[in-house]
């Protein structure tokens, strides 16, 4: 009788193990809508620096991780901050280097950037930021005052607050 129970326990244990190991792989495979084109920051206006498809996806991911359900303008703002950093001498010079600068963005550090499927609005927001919209007027930082932030951040010049985020430079 007890042996039977033990067998059952072992079986249950194995089942739990399987779920833990395989689970994350089958959790979600929501198809992302496909975008057809690379983007240009300034169409035909002779400017340098053309963001590409990979920049677009990185932006979508960070906007989703950092501002998933923020107001639309706030989502565009987060995208704009990343692009403002790329243009600024104070930060590295490409979207990937800015996004993956260690400890720069919380959703990159904790992995939420890759686990939260982006919404349609997140994607439109990334597109708008790449097309040059910047509701933050050149902000280089954004932070959520409700969270544990470095007190230093409040010494920045604040431009505006949108949704839960404060934007500044």
């Amino acid at each position: 009788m007890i042996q039977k129970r033990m067998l059952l326990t072992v079986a249950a244990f194995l089942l739990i193990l399987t779920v833990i190991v395989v689970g994350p792989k089958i959790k979600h495979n929501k198809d992302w809508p496909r975008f057809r084109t690379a983007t240009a920051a300034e169409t035909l206006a002779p400017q340098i620096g053309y963001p590409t498809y990979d920049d677009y996806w990185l932006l979508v991911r960070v906007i989703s991780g950092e501002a998933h359900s923020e107001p639309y303008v706030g989502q565009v703002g987060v995208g704009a901050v990343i692009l403002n950093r790329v243009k600024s001498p104070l930060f590295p010079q490409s979207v990937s280097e800015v996004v993956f600068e260690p400890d720069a963005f919380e959703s990159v550090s904790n992995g939420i950037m890759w686990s939260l499927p982006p919404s349609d609005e997140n994607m439109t927001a990334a597109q708008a930021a790449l097309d040059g919209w910047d509701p933050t007027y050149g902000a280089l930082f954004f932070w959520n005052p409700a969270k544990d932030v470095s007190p230093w951040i409040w010494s920045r010049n604040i431009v505006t607050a949108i949704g839960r985020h404060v934007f500044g430079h």
Partner: protein
Amino acid sequence: MQNRRLLSIAAVGLLLVAGVWLWNYNQENTRVRNSLESGYQRALFSMVDHVQNLNTLLAKGQVIQDSGQGVLTLASAWHEAESARSSLGQMPLGRFNLTSVQKYLAQVGDYSYSLARKLSRGETLTDKEQETLATLSQETDKLNRDLQTMIGSIKSKPTWGTKGVTVGVKGQPVAPAGSIADGLGKVDGRLKDEVPSITYDGPFSEHVEDIKPRAVSGGNITIERAGMIAEDFANKLGTKEKQTYRVTSARRVSGNIPAYSLIMKAEGDSRRPDITVDVSQTGGHVIHMLNPYQPGEATLDIGTAVQKAEEFCRAAGYDNMITTGSLRHPKNLMVTQVWQQGDTVAYPDFVKVTVALDTGEITAFDARGYLTAHRRRDLPKPKFTAEDAHDKAAARLTVDRIRSAIIPMSDASERFVWEVKGRANDQTFLIYYNAETGDEEKVLQVIESPDGTYTM
């Protein structure tokens, strides 16, 4: 009895399994941490390497006399500075404010590049430029020594200072003494205090950040007046059911163009998302508008959408604009319109309009470019004529069109040019010749795709 034995065997077995698993886990953990750490260490040592190379190149740059050698040396200096910046951005220092090192390296590189460009045009460096180069060389030498000392003092595995951070003056995070963050923090502070600000013709020059918007004029307006302007603007957007938008909330925004940001609701349609319109506090210009509307299936053709954008711009008070390009996204089209002074296309004076490809309504508008750059310019009579431009270009391509234009440069200055559109090897190019000197200011390749026209 037997049951008990079985149970204890099972318990011992489980413990054994758990022990092996824990040991493996720990091993794996250490391996992963080391691999991550070595990435950081590689970045640190690379940065130090690049700064050392930069230092040597800048020292050489001061004694080189031949321009060919000078171009090579200074362009290499730019490359080393950029590589050093890139390495710096890969270290786990994101929470510390080490922006002065980044900025210093960016400016040194940018400045070297600007001098290299000058030499490549056959010009010589002025005394002032030589002097700035000497100053930067001395600063880089100090930076190099600091870094070498820091590296030299690392006796065992470098600590980054991410643990045990305390709060210093102005809330600045302070890393524990002896850590890399601490060492670089001191270097950062010194650079911030010592390095003079430099102005030159590159994008990282100090003057670029301080550009004042040129077309924002008029008296200060009240927030109520801004609301009226925004409502008037919103009701030109051409929404399908001709909704009327009303301001529901407003806030002040203190960017380089101080503004009121107004959030508006569509009257009688709660499903329509709120739109945001920013109106400048000076003069009441609409700076931008964003509408989170997600268009349905695209039914409009590009031509009709461009026409909608043009009509909207006219209604919003922009005259003498021509469409210079459009870019198709899956459900909307972004159209760029540029102001024309006579026959001259003033590219810096642009507005951008996004049209939804289902209803044809305007979902985004941006006039920051126009408000920053727009003015009537004094255009000299070209010394280098359209015929000269044609002849120069015809040697390399089949010329399709020549028009006069003003183009923005990376340091926010402008050039009065001839824009030559032509074809070579089945590819289309835009070449810009300075209308004064005939120099080639810029060459762009035009990519025509079903999604729109853009340049590389």
